């Protein structure tokens, strides 16, 4: 039995299944307006910040070799992504200019209650689980954004296409979404390599699957919440 091969197939199926969930369908089905687009872009920057929290926690709990991989991963995210010439939070803010957002709009943004609950849930998974579960929980969000794995394109690609089709803004101008289409493919592949080194037993697999299941459940709730809030914006 190919433990690792079977596990990776299951993870791939799980990220594809996300897009069949009612929450994802609802979120991706909300017609974009400029105001809804602005809301999404600001919220996505907050999501990026939450990712930085969680990867820090995962780094704290992981073995030394994995810490090093995460540190390198965070170089793109936190310091400078050579694909963009800036860190990913700055990239989100820069992207906002295309739809009329200013840096202050990001600074004063509030985290809506349902989104806040999801962020805390991700914190919890990252901080209070076995490192393999915590690591997988964060990894799955990049795997779910990997167009080589997700049929029909990852989340960034699909949202970028919505901006293009519904607001007439070319994906290339949505620089954060565009960079993530590529960056998360690279990141999810680099991070996935760690499974080959550390997943050896059925118990290891179960730890990985636990993290994956929990993170995907939170991700569905998060996307459902974003869809709900976007619908409230006329």
């Amino acid at each position: 039995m190919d433990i690792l091969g079977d596990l990776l197939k299951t993870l791939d199926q799980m990220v594809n299944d996300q897009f069949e969930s009612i929450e994802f369908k609802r979120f991706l089905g909300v017609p974009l307006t400029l105001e809804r687009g602005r809301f999404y872009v600001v919220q996505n920057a907050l999501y990026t910040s939450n990712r930085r929290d969680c990867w820090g926690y995962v780094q704290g709990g992981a073995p030394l070799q994995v810490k090093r991989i995460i540190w390198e991963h965070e170089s793109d995210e936190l310091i400078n992504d050579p694909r963009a010439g800036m860190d990913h939070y700055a990239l989100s803010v820069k992207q906002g200019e295309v739809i009329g957002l200013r840096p202050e709009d990001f600074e004063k943004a509030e985290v809506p209650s349902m989104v806040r609950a999801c962020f805390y849930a991700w914190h919890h998974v990252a901080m209070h689980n076995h490192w393999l579960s915590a690591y997988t929980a964060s990894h799955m969000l990049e795997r779910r954004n990997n167009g080589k794995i997700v049929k029909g394109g990852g989340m960034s690609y699909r949202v970028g296409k919505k901006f293009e089709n519904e607001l007439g803004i070319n994906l290339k101008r949505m620089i954060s979404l565009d960079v993530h289409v590529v960056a998360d493919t690279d990141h999810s592949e680099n991070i996935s390599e760690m499974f080959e080194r550390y997943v050896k037993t059925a118990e290891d697999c179960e730890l990985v699957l636990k993290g994956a299941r929990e993170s995907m459940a939170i991700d569905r709730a998060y996307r459902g919440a974003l869809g709900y809030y976007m619908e409230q914006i006329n």
Partner: protein
Amino acid sequence: MKTTPNGIETLWTELIRMCNEQFASKPFRRLLSTRFTKARAQQYSIQMAFYVQNRRDCWGYVQGSAPLEIKKLIWQHEEDELIGRKSEGKQDHITLAVKEGEIFGLTAEAFEQNPRLEGGEVCFSAWIRVAQRSWLEAIAASAILEMRNSGELIQGGSLSRRIGDMLERDLGIPMKKQINTAEHVVMDVEHAHLLMQVARKYASSETARKAILRGAAESLMIDRVYRGHLADMLEALPDA
């Protein structure tokens, strides 16, 4: 340092006082009055590598909870520790610890095969617990250990400097050959300023300053317990 109206200077002075006071504590005095033998130096070196690994755990958690601009500072801090300054040809601090072990007759396997000291393990868990608290407490708890290791702030020399001097005195190993200790003697002077950078921006309220003091005090308490366990371990080994 200029006096500021929000008590930053008072906070900084108090933190430095607390760090200096560590060296007057019983566990520190016991540890620093030990005479090193080769066997003692070996065990000390191995346990310090575990200590460095625990620092990496804690700084990761602190990075997780800190604001974005502080995350960046910690990420840079961790480059020295976890990766090494490749551009300057410097190795990460765990590799350095293992390499330093060679001068005590240790192989890389010795670091993998020797267990963590039981008392050390308990202290490591305690430090992780503090690292998972509110971010100001957490960062103070980790940063204070580098302040305690800064020759610029500690009268009579930092902990790394004092241990290095003892190894030189007892085993005739010059400081420059103690590559990990020598690195920390230098780097922790630089790293010790991280907490002040944080305090200048975020310790504007009494509540924030109290959180920093609480985290620092708790970490120094764990540090005393840890050093006491190290002293026990060394004393249990033959003195000649």
